[in-house]
């Protein structure tokens, strides 16, 4: 693990704030830079930060950037980076909302293509997250794996959550009950 250079962290946040398209591709860009390119954190710690960010209320991407920033850079750099992450998209959205012909079929189709690309490209990122379900609790060992029944249970819970999500149940009770299920599986079995 290294400490992120201030300038690199600010640039990464600005790049994602100004260029990323699609929900999960934004996290994918963080993963690409933090784990693969700069190696500021390991894949395991990236997942740890992601889990922490997802468990807290608020917009996922900003939560994640704030979490990772707290780990990697001083507080003032973190706050500046968050502004760089939020501002470009907000300004662009205002411009689009005020002036762009959103009902124009060409504009709609181009945006649709970007969205499809963003969602398809999350495949590798999802694979990394899925691999993280095998991890064991020993932090001192580089490759520590959980017991097989525990791993199977984790995959089953994730799959059940995906299936249940398609029924459009209220988010808070759904997440709360699955969080309880996850904790019960980990600690009781």
């Amino acid at each position: 693990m290294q400490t992120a250079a201030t300038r690199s962290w600010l640039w990464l946040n600005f790049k994602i704030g100004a260029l990323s398209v699609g929900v999960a591709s934004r996290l994918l860009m963080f993963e690409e830079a933090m784990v693969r390119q700069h190696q500021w954190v390991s894949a395991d710690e990236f997942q740890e930060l992601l889990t922490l960010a997802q468990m807290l209320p608020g917009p996922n991407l900003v939560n994640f950037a704030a979490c990772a920033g707290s780990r990697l850079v001083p507080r003032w750099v973190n706050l500046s980076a968050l502004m760089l992450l939020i501002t470009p998209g907000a300004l662009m959205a205002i411009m689009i909302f005020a002036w762009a012909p959103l009902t124009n079929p060409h504009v709609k189709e181009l945006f649709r293509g970007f969205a499809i690309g963003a969602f398809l490209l999350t495949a590798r990122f999802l694979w990394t997250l899925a691999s993280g379900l095998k991890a064991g609790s020993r932090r001192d060992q580089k490759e520590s794996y959980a017991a097989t029944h525990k791993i199977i249970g984790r995959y089953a819970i994730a799959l059940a959550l995906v299936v249940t999500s398609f029924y459009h149940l209220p988010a808070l009770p759904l997440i709360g009950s699955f969080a309880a299920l996850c904790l019960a599986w980990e600690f009781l079995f």
Partner: protein
Amino acid sequence: MIYWQLFSLFAHVSLLAFGGALGLLPEIQAVVVDQYHWMTADALVQTYVVGQFVPGPNMVMATLVGYKVAGFTGALVSTLGMYLGPVTIVFICTALYYRNRQKDYVRRIELALRPLVLGLILAATLLFLTQQLQADWPIGLAIGLPIVWLHWHRRISAITGVFAIGVIWYAVV
């Protein structure tokens, strides 16, 4: 008064936002459309759609509602309302987490919650992908899979891949 209403609305909903923005739409609609009549339901959905397509956090919807209701100042206070509370909570919780990170039970709680994170991201991805592709899914996969393969094998970056798929899709469909 209107600025305070905008700020408090988004400060309130941001603290209910577990696992994504989509679940907040009914809550925002109840206040913005039904209670205050600031905008129509269609215009509200349009702010959500724009939020999905612009870069950065997808909760830019808050900024757009604020802009529509009270101009740039409205956009600013809505944005502050949306992010101030969660960011403060994240700072506090991250500090607490890293203070206790080496404890065995903290690691086990984090591992336990990983399926939840995977499930939420996978569900959101599949949901939006099926909405976007609809009947054109064979074309989408034919265009997308080779580029996904290139990205998987580190030949191209994610952003290049997204733009490549977007432009090819636009040219083909």
